[in-house]
């Protein structure tokens, strides 16, 4: 018995066969999709790891520089110096389609392009250590943006791969075997019905034949009786 209940009819069989064909095709396509996604994902993840290491190191350097700066300057002065930024960053986000997964592509705009414009303060009251700190931070910032892009991409790809993998497995190990079993069940059931129909016909034929022979025999017997009876009488007379 198949796990799912199916009607063993020819119509159902045709329907199941068509479905099986679609499933096998879908399975193949999904498998290809998974493989390609995996390939892309591995590239992205490798870059992600390298970039993260780089960004973390850069940020640690920047934090170290800030600690030095805050040791030299009072915290009020430090805060005051950074309080009103000269730069402002805006982000343009477009999407790139990787195997039907939308991944973000960031492009950031700064209000002013000049490299020396990152210091939001006059140099008179601040220490050189703060300049170093801001410098270190701004040099790592490009990588930080790239990291944001690539880390989000890897998260989205990971989700899609997980989904695709589940679908592939569900088709491969559940759906397709189930359908094959149902098809086999129906085929066998139909064959069985056909055989039993043939047997029934043969049996009926036998019965009809037997009946016909019996009738013929009776008719013969009657004829013999009629003829033999007449013969017996006449012989008796002779």
């Amino acid at each position, binding site marked *: 018995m198949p796990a799912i209940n199916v009607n063993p009819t020819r119509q159902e069989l045709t329907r199941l066969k068509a479905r099986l064909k679609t499933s096998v095709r879908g399975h193949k396509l999904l498998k290809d999709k998974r493989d390609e996604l995996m390939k892309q994902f591995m590239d992205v993840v490798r870059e992600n790891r390298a970039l993260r290491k780089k960004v973390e190191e850069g940020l640690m350097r920047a934090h170290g520089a800030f600690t030095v700066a805050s040791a030299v300057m009072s915290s009020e002065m430090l805060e005051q110096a950074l309080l009103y930024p000269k730069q402002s960053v805006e*982000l343009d986000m477009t999407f790139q389609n990787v195997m039907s997964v939308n991944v*973000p592509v960031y492009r950031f705009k700064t209000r002013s392009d000049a490299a020396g414009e990152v210091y939001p303060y006059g140099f008179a009251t601040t220490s050189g250590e703060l300049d170093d700190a801001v410098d270190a931070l701004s040099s790592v910032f490009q990588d930080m943006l790239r990291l944001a892009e690539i880390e989000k991409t890897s998260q989205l790809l990971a989700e899609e791969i997980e989904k695709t993998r589940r679908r592939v497995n569900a088709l491969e190990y559940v759906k397709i075997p189930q359908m094959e079993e149902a098809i086999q069940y129906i085929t066998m059931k139909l064959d069985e019905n056909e055989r039993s129909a043939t047997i029934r016909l043969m049996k009926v034929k036998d019965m009809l034949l037997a009946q016909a022979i019996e009738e013929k025999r009776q008719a013969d017997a009657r004829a013999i009786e009629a003829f033999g009876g007449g013969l017996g009488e006449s012989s008796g007379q002779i």
Partner: protein
Amino acid sequence: MSSYRIAALGDRDSVLGFKALGLDVFPAETAEEARRTLHALAKENYAVIYLTEGYAAEMEGEIARYKDDLTPAIILIPGKDGSLGIGMANVKRAVERAVGADIL
């Protein structure tokens, strides 16, 4: 194409420097405050939120919630106390999620 903004969220000393770069800085004193700010930011026009690892450790659920959405991208950065390895662990987890095992 539309314009988005970038936020830096974390303890005061760790994120102050980002102000010089023109990011929107949101200092948070407690993890609870960070959590509230994160939700508020996610509703607004922020595409990238840099979050310090110190707070990230206490709000994993919130981060997971935005993981599968396009925006915002929550990117963990080490705070002033140094890297806690959570960011790297997340990369590792993404690999495990996709492949089923950590193959790197």
